[in-house]
C-alpha cells in the first residue's frame, strides 16, 4: 500500500492516508462489541422481567398464555390470601437467613483451616471443593438416602449410640423422618443449601485470606495477641468486604433457588416447608395459573433487588481499597 501511494499525485496522497475504515471508527467498534451484552440483557433479563410483571397483572394461564385481559392486583391479593403464602414467605426468609448465618461461620472456619499448612491439605481442599463439582442430581440421590425415612444412615447411627428408638431421648419412633416434619424438613434444606454454597464462598474468601501478608499476623503475635484477637482484629476486618460479597451472592442464589426443596421435601408436609420460588413453579407451571405464579415470583423481587444493589456496592468498595 505504501508502495502504491508513492506513485500517486500529492493530492491523492492525503485521501489515501486519512481514509478511515469502518472497523477503525470507535463508535462502530464500540457498538459491535457491546451488542451481545445488550442483546443478552434485553432478551433474557429485561423482556422476561417486564413479561412477568405483565403476566402477574393479567389472567393468563398455561393453556391460554396470551396477555389480553388485565385484572389489576387480583392475582397478588388471591395468592396472599392462600394459606401457603405465609408458609412460603416465612420459609424463604428463614431458610435464607439460617443458611447465611451457618455459611458465614463455616466459611470462616474453612478458610482459617485452609490458610494453614498441614499434612493432607491437598486432599482436604479437594474434599471441601467437591460439593461444587457434584451434579445436582447425583447430590440429590446422596442426600435423599441420608435423609431417607426408613434407611437413613444418620438414624442408624443415632439408634446405634442409643439416642433414637423406643425409650430414648429422641423419641419412641425408629426414624426421625427428616423430610416429613416441618422443622426437620426446613433444617434439612438449610443443611443442603449450606453444603452446596460453601465451596464457592470458601474459594472467594480464601483468595482474600491468602492475600493478607503473614507479617501482620507475626506482628500481632509479637504485640501479644492470641488466636481470637488475631481472628477478630486482623483476619476478619481484612476479609470483611470479600466475605460480605461472597455471602450476598450466595443469598441471591439460595433465595431464588427451588431445586433443593423440589428434590427433597417438595414443600410438604402440607405447605409447611414451602418456599416462594417452588410455590411459584407449582402454581404457575404445574398448576397452570401462569399469572398467579408470576405474582408469587414477584414477591422475591424486592429482596433480590436490595441484595443485588448491596452486593454490587460492596464489590465496588472492595475494588476501591
Amino acid at each position, binding site marked *: 500500500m505504501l508502495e502504491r501511494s508513492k506513485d500517486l499525485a500529492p493530492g491523492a496522497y492525503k485521501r489515501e492516508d486519512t481514509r478511515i475504515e469502518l472497523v477503525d471508527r470507535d463508535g462502530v467498534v464500540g457498538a459491535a462489541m457491546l451488542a451481545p451484552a445488550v442483546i443478552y440483557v434485553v432478551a433474557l433479563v429485561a423482556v422476561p422481567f417486564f413479561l412477568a410483571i405483565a403476566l402477574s397483572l393479567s389472567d393468563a394461564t398455561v393453556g391460554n398464555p396470551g396477555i389480553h385481559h388485565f385484572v389489576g392486583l387480583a392475582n397478588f391479593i388471591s395468592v396472599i390470601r392462600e394459606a401457603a403464602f405465609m408458609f412460603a414467605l416465612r420459609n424463604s426468609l428463614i431458610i435464607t437467613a439460617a443458611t447465611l448465618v451457618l455459611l458465614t461461620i463455616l466459611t470462616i472456619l474453612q478458610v482459617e483451616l485452609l490458610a494453614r499448612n498441614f499434612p493432607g491439605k491437598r486432599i482436604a481442599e479437594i474434599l471441601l471443593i467437591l460439593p461444587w463439582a457434584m451434579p445436582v442430581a447425583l447430590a440429590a440421590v446422596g442426600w435423599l438416602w441420608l435423609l431417607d425415612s426408613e434407611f437413613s444412615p444418620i438414624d442408624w447411627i443415632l439408634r446405634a449410640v442409643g439416642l433414637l428408638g423406643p425409650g430414648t431421648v429422641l423419641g419412641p419412633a425408629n426414624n426421625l423422618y427428616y423430610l416429613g416434619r416441618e422443622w426437620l424438613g426446613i433444617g434439612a434444606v438449610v443443611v443442603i443449601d449450606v453444603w452446596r454454597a460453601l465451596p464457592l464462598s470458601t474459594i472467594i474468601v480464601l483468595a482474600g485470606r491468602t492475600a493478607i501478608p503473614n507479617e501482620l499476623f507475626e506482628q500481632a503475635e509479637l504485640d501479644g*495477641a*492470641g488466636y481470637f484477637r488475631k481472628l477478630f482484629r486482623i483476619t476478619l476486618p481484612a476479609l470483611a468486604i470479600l466475605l460480605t460479597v461472597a455471602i450476598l451472592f450466595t443469598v441471591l442464589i439460595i433465595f431464588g433457588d427451588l431445586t433443593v426443596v423440589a428434590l427433597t421435601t417438595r414443600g410438604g408436609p402440607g405447605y409447611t416447608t414451602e418456599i416462594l420460588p417452588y410455590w411459584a413453579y407449582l402454581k404457575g407451571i404445574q398448576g397452570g395459573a401462569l399469572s398467579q405464579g408470576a405474582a408469587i415470583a414477584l414477591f422475591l423481587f424486592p429482596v433480590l433487588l436490595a441484595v443485588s444493589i448491596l452486593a454490587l456496592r460492596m464489590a465496588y468498595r472492595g475494588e476501591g481499597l
Partner: protein
Amino acid sequence: MAVLEVRGLAKHFGDFKALKRIDLTTQDGEFLTIVGPSGCGKTTLMRLIAGLETPTAGDVLIDDKVITPLPPRARNIAMVFQSYALYPHMSVRENIAFPLKARGVDKAERERLIQWSAKVLGIESLLHRRPARLSGGEKQKVALARAIVRKPSLFIFDEPLSSLDAQVRAVARAELRQLHDRTGVTTVYVTHDQVEAVGLGDRVAVMQAGALRQVGSPQNLYYEPANVFVASFIGTPPMNLLPHNGVIVGFRPEHALPRAAAPKLQDVATFQVCVTRTEFLGSEWLAYGTVNGEFNNAKVLCKLQQDAISKVKVGEVQDIVVSRSQIRFFDKDTGLRTEAVPI
C-alpha cells in the same frame, strides 16, 4: 533494659543450614547491629530471637532466663518489620493501642502511653489517620511508637530503613539511634547495609553463610578485621586484598597514597600500580589500577584527596605507598588474620 544471649543457636530448613550454632551476647542497653549479605541467616536469627521460628538447636536467653519455649507474645520483644506491618484497617491510634489492649492495659493508662509514645516520635497529629495515608517515614514512626508503647525488654529491627528513599533514610537513621539513646532499650538491628550497621551500632556482628564472622566495635571491624570476609565487607569501598606468597595482603583504599604525596618519614610499603581510570566522587577521587610485580596484576582501588590525585598519572606505572601500620595480613587458605610478613 535487658541482656540478650544466644547460645549455640542453629536452624536447619531441611538440608539447608540457615544458622550454624551462633553464640552472641549483648550488653545491657546496647545497640547491636547484625550485618551480612542477603541469605546469610541474619533474618532467621532475628525470627528465632523473636520466637517466630523454632530453633533446631540452642537457646535464646533474656536476663539469663531461657525463653526458647515461649511463644512470641510471652517474650516482651518488640519487632519492627521491614514493611512496618501496620494494621491497615486501624487508625494510627488503634495501631499503637493494639499491644496495650492485647495485654489488658486499662483505658486511662492506655491513653497516657499512647500520648507519650506519639510525643516521643512526634506523630501526635497523625493519630486519627489510616496507614494507607502515611508516607514511608511516617509509617516508620508509627511502627516505632507501637513498638515502644509497651516498654519492651528488647527491640528487634529487621531492615527498617530499606523501604525508605535515600534522603528520608539518613534522617530516619538518626531518629532511630536517638530513640534508642532516649529509651535505653537493648536493640538488635539487622541490615545488609554495612554503612548503616557501622554508623548505628555500638557493636557490629558480621554474619556470612549462617555463621558469625566477627563481633566488635565499628572501629574494631574497620581497623582489625578478623578475616578476609569482614575485610571485604566493611568499608566503602572495601579493603584491597592482594594475594602474595601464601598470604593475602590487605590495605584500605583510603590508606593508599602516591609516593609524591606521602609524608617522608613514614615506614611504608610500596606497590607498583598502573592506574587505569579515575572517578570523581565529590569530596575525593577513586583511582582504579592493577598492581605489577609479585602481585600478578591484582586489581586495586585507591581513595585519594584532591591534592593526592593531582600526583597520579593515568596510564602509567607509579609508586603507591601504604603505611606499614595500616597493612593487614590474612592466611590464604583459612582467610584468617596472620602475622605480618615482609613485603
